[in-house]
């Protein structure tokens, strides 16, 4: 497969006459990058505080009036949750107004046979069955697949289940309950909602581990930049072969 830079990517960046010499493409616009790092930070706070809500630290002593530890931990969780949720909404908005790479998290080219073929190719690449990786401007198809099913759907589930749980405490007349209380129709005993929200935390821990590993590995092994791309927005290619 030859890598054909999308003319839309080049237009903002290089003269079309230099298209065949392109070594760098502007992929992730500033709002996407900013969101990525804010979201990463929010996720770290959410996972750590969430874990300590599920399995609290060792008991404090003395009188209840002297401490508010669980209160602070829960506050941090809820505050980070709002940043996570509002960030996701802004990110969805950016999928509409940003460049076409911004839409990749939310769309799947399910009817594109080449996309499926490339998923298999990427799997083989990760299983050391391919000698040389392909070039991709956005996410590679396998990453795209995982991003959508684990990250995007996972985020939606965590937001919906999280706000439903928040609504339990905020009361049945709260905004959170009226917007996400329907989750209890799926999980009538909210103990299950707590359980799956908790499992969701582990899914995100696993996702983060694999995501960071894959990004660093690809940065070294693939033919394009990875880590710096999420900082500068530029996808740099190490060679000019297709």
């Amino acid at each position: 497969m030859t890598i054909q830079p999308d003319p839309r990517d080049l237009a903002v960046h290089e003269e079309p006459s230099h298209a065949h010499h392109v070594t760098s493409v502007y992929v992730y616009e500033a709002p996407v990058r900013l969101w990525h790092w804010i979201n990463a930070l929010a996720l770290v706070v959410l996972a750590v505080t969430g874990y300590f809500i599920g399995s609290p630290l060792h008991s404090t002593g003395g009188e209840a009036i002297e401490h508010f530890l669980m209160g602070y931990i829960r506050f941090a969780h809820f505050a980070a949750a709002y940043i996570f949720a509002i960030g996701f909404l802004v990110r969805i908005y950016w999928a509409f107004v940003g460049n076409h790479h911004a839409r990749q998290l939310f769309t799947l080219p399910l009817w594109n046979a080449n996309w499926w073929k490339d998923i298999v190719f990427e799997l083989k690449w990760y299983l050391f069955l391919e000698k040389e990786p392909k070039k991709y401007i956005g996410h590679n198809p396998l990453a795209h697949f995982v991003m959508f099913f684990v990250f995007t759907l996972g985020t939606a589930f965590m937001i919906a289940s999280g706000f439903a749980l928040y609504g339990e405490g905020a009361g049945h007349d709260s905004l959170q309950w009226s917007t996400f209380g329907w989750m209890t129709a799926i999980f009538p005993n909210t103990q299950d909602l707590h359980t799956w929200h908790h499992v969701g935390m582990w899914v995100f821990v696993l996702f983060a581990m694999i995501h960071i590993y894959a990004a660093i590995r690809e940065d070294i092994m693939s033919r394009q930049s990875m880590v710096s791309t999420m900082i500068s927005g530029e996808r740099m290619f190490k060679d000019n072969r297709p």
Partner: protein
Amino acid sequence: MAELETFYDVIRRQGISRRSFLKFCSLAAASMGLGPAFAPKIAHAMETKPRIPVVWIHGLECTCCSESFIRSAHPLAKDVILSMISLDYDPVIMAAAGDQAEAALEDTITKYKGNYILAVEGNPPLNEDGMFCIVGGKPFVEQLRHAAKDAMAVISWGSCASWGCVQAAAPNPTQATPVHKVITDKPIIKVPGCPPIAEVMTGIVTYLLTFGTLPEMDRQGRPKMFYSQRIHDKCYRRPHFDAGQFVEQWDDEAARKGYCLYKMGCKGPTTYNACSTTRWNEGVSFPIQSGHGCIGCSEDGFWDKGSFYDRLTTIPQFGVESTADTVGLTAAGAAGAAIATHAAISAVKRARAGGTNDKSE
């Protein structure tokens, strides 16, 4: 249709004079903030409003709902049964037995068609055509369908009728089924709990009598006035939760001090009931107050959600049950090991290939 005894009839039958009755109506109007003109209206309502006939049937259950009900203090169960409602059939507490009792049921169903309330304690088993629960020589499910057909509304007493409870716990050999899955064409009020709180039970009956309509209910069909908040929301130990003060072991200092039972698996944060406000036995206590965590007995499928001492549901996998954290940690460990191995192989491959991207450019 036969004449129904009105409240006024009952009041007179209990030896209260008409003069006292009218005084009561004036007082009632005043206490509700209504003008003097409402006193005759209340008197009229009391004189004309019939006592609601109630038929109380028993399926697969342990009678703990009835046991709870008869302990109601506000109002007293005797006042509910003898004055407020007309309890026409309840094999557990009625004097009649055998054919006489069954005749009373038929009598009520035909006489008060569409005007009686059906209270169901327990649930019908559907397996083997319902043969696991026989009442009056017939499967209970038939009695339930028959009595529900002409009922005004159905009250599902307790977790059995509401969710299925212990007899519906996996693998549920008798296929015990909650009432709302068998009776689908009648309004159903779920009053879950194993048993429900006595005052909640009589409170719902009182509501039905006073207002003649069903109480406001939540998404799952439970009356909001008793089931809209979790035990945790009104728990008197909640300040210890917010402070991070937890009982770590049943016999530790924290347990003596009455700290929060969250870490002992208290299900208060996921249980909707009125225990922490109404309490039990005339407001004497409730489980958390006596030092044990809530087991979530009023929640859907509470028998199948793992240990009573775990806050999270156990996750079955490969025949072994495990908690979310065990699954998560195992998966994270496996992923970490896989990543390390993968990274090592990647490094070796790359070193063998010449280290750098020499062949490029």
